[in-house]
């Protein structure tokens, strides 16, 4: 009986040990047994861009039969940022990822990416790489430079402009070619003709304000720069958001809601381009050239009435548009297959023309060339976006004096900048 019992105990113990060995080592044995390489490529959701890249990945896999590409599409850029950071901290993460410029300073200062592999392009210098790339891709490369090395291959360089619904203009007796909001003052004037009110409620907004912190800050930054101000001083050391320019810009937006009543008080935060695609808004200023393909897919009824116009200016302000932003393919310093990742990146940026067609690079038609050339670089990190948006919502939703909220925002931004362990690129 005792021998039988001992045998059972030993059997159970042996099986347990075998089970653990299989669990912990099995996976590795399986991976090492195969000869194929798996490249992990992560990007954010944008249907036209994903559809453009899928056949390119297939082409790459055909070209390199021993490489398999696993594409992961995150729901949004912040979602991608969060996943990439957590994965990197654990020593894993993607081999190749497509990230926006606002994160570049942070990523490069923590050593998360490697510079472009010159060999992949058969080049000896970055200048030679640029010559081999399409103009749009090469032009955006400067945004990914750190200590004389380039870390990203540009997949998108964009800026916002004004989108108007021509049908709404027609209904209001306005000519969309002449009466578009060339200035903020003009927007207030035509807005009062465009807005539709029923029983005291705005049922169609003339101008909808973005309630998404990142896009709101881009719009607000554009307004500030037109008035000679900015969110952060040129040396990047302190915030100047509470200048007269800041107060005037925020007061302008406040007046749209409460003085001219052309913008409804938003009912929910974190919405981009609110209402335009449903026909509930006539004008928005937080959409780029990519919006055309998006609208065609998602709101075919509104799409024929979409027209892009320049971002409004102030009557006595500078003639500049909204800050530019961009995305680039970057290779992780954790990757075992850096060269293969750059090979994949090279193929993904090979269709700059197609990217331009779907609005990822700014089109050659008016108003885009001027808007992109005057807008300057948008380099504000997310944390500052959140502070700016918090201040703005206090004024716009809770009716707190703009000077008061911007003074509080300046203090918070200054504290953030003082504690920041790295330098934000773009500032001297």
């Amino acid at each position, binding site marked *: 009986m005792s021998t039988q019992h001992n045998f059972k105990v030993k059997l159970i113990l042996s099986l347990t040990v075998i089970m653990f060995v299989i669990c912990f080592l099995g996976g590795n044995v399986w991976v090492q047994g195969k000869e194929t390489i798996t490249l992990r490529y992560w990007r954010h959701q944008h249907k036209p861009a994903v559809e453009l890249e899928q056949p390119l990945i297939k082409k790459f896999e055909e070209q390199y039969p021993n490489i398999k590409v696993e594409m992961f599409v995150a729901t949004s850029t912040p979602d991608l940022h*969060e996943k990439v950071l957590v994965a990197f901290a654990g020593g894993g993460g993607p081999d190749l990822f497509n990230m926006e410029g606002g994160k570049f300073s942070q990523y490069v200062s923590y050593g998360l990416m490697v510079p472009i592999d010159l060999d992949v392009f058969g080049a000896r210098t970055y200048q030679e790489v640029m010559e081999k790339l399409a103009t749009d891709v090469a032009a955006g490369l400067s945004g990914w430079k750190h200590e004389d090395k380039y870390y990203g291959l540009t997949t998108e360089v964009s800026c916002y402009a004004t989108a108007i619904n021509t049908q709404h203009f027609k209904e209001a007796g306005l000519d969309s070619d002449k009466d578009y909001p060339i200035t903020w003052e003009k927007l207030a004037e035509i807005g009062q003709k465009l807005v539709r009110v029923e029983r005291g*409620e705005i049922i169609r907004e003339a101008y909808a304000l973005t309630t998404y912190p990142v896009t709101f800050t881009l719009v607000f930054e554009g307004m500030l720069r037109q008035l000679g101000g900015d969110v952060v001083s040129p040396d990047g050391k302190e915030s100047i958001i509470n200048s007269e320019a800041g107060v005037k810009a925020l007061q302008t937006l406040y007046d749209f809601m409460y003085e001219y009543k052309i913008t409804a*008080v938003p009912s929910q935060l974190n919405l981009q381009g609110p209402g335009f695609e449903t026909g509930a808004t006539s004008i928005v200023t937080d959409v780029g050239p990519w919006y055309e393909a998006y609208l065609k897919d998602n709101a075919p009824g509104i799409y024929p009435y979409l027209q892009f116009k320049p971002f409004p200016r102030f009557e006595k302000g500078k003639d500049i548009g909204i800050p530019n932003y961009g995305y680039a393919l970057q290779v992780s310093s954790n990757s075992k297959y850096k060269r293969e990742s750059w090979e994949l990146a090279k193929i993904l940026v090979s269709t700059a023309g197609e990217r331009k067609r779907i609005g990822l690079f700014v089109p050659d038609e008016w108003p885009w060339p001027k808007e992109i050339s005057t807008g300057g670089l948008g380099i504000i990190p997310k944390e500052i976006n959140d502070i700016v948006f*918090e201040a703005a919502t206090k004024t716009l*939703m*809770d009716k707190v004096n703009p000077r008061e909220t911007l003074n509080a925002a300046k203090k918070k931004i200054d504290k953030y900048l003082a504690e920041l362990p790295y330098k934000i690129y773009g500032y001297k």
Partner: protein
Amino acid sequence: MRIKEIQLLFQKIFSQRKLVGFLFVLPGLVFFMIFFFYPVINAIYISFTRWNLFTSKQFVGLGNFVELFQDPDFLQSFKVTGYFSLGTCLLLWITSLSLALLINSNLKFTKLFQIFYFLPSILSLTVVTIVWSYMYRRLGLINMFLKAVFDISSIPWLSSSKYALLSITIMMVWCWAGYYMIIFLAGLRGIPFTLYEAAKIDGANWWHTLIRITFPLLKPTFLFISIVSVMACLQAFAPFLLMTSGGPGSSTRVMTLKIYGDAFFRLRMGRAAAESMILFLIMFIFSLIQIRVFRSEVTY
């Protein structure tokens, strides 16, 4: 000689029945140690360090805790969490107990109402949040109803700091009341009917039986509900992230949202861990207080 001794020891160990039991428990124990115990210990350690995921951890002692209590953003999130938990729990207890009393009163169609009230609690909180976000919109169902019936202008439910926290509270009460109603109902049905009969014979009215019989005998149920609901409120995260992201301003930035932002966007892991420790301490203290307050010697 030495080898023989080891063999004997080996046999002795393997002949013990306790070891067999231990082996069966081992996988669960390993799982618990890796995924629960280690993270908790690690979080305590991280709370005493400055760490951004990519640099080495720098020990700062109580530095993070001192900074937190001087940080107006943290104090604001502490306050918001307090208001939300207090408001939601009170409303929740009153609503769910009232519903349970109604269902328990043998009125017509009580079974049907019981199902209706319970239904929201089986829905995913994310789904509920999204649906309510639409209902709270400027031209959404709630504003349209208020306009049509009371001629009230649209209320910025989620974009004004006056209403945002209240809006989330209302949604949470709607979502959770059915679940707590069922627990109260179980408690109510556990009270012997003879006690009510005796009270009736003694001339007690509805209010007297409620105060003198129902409430005292519901103490164990209250204890469970109060602990579970306070924990749930203190840990609430998804509705705040999806509905307001802590805004407008910082009027709905609860502690969980602050921890998330500090950890994954500001990469201040030490500070986030310290905030988590404080949240844990609050929950622990609340649970102790509740156990003491609702301690019941009643057996029936």
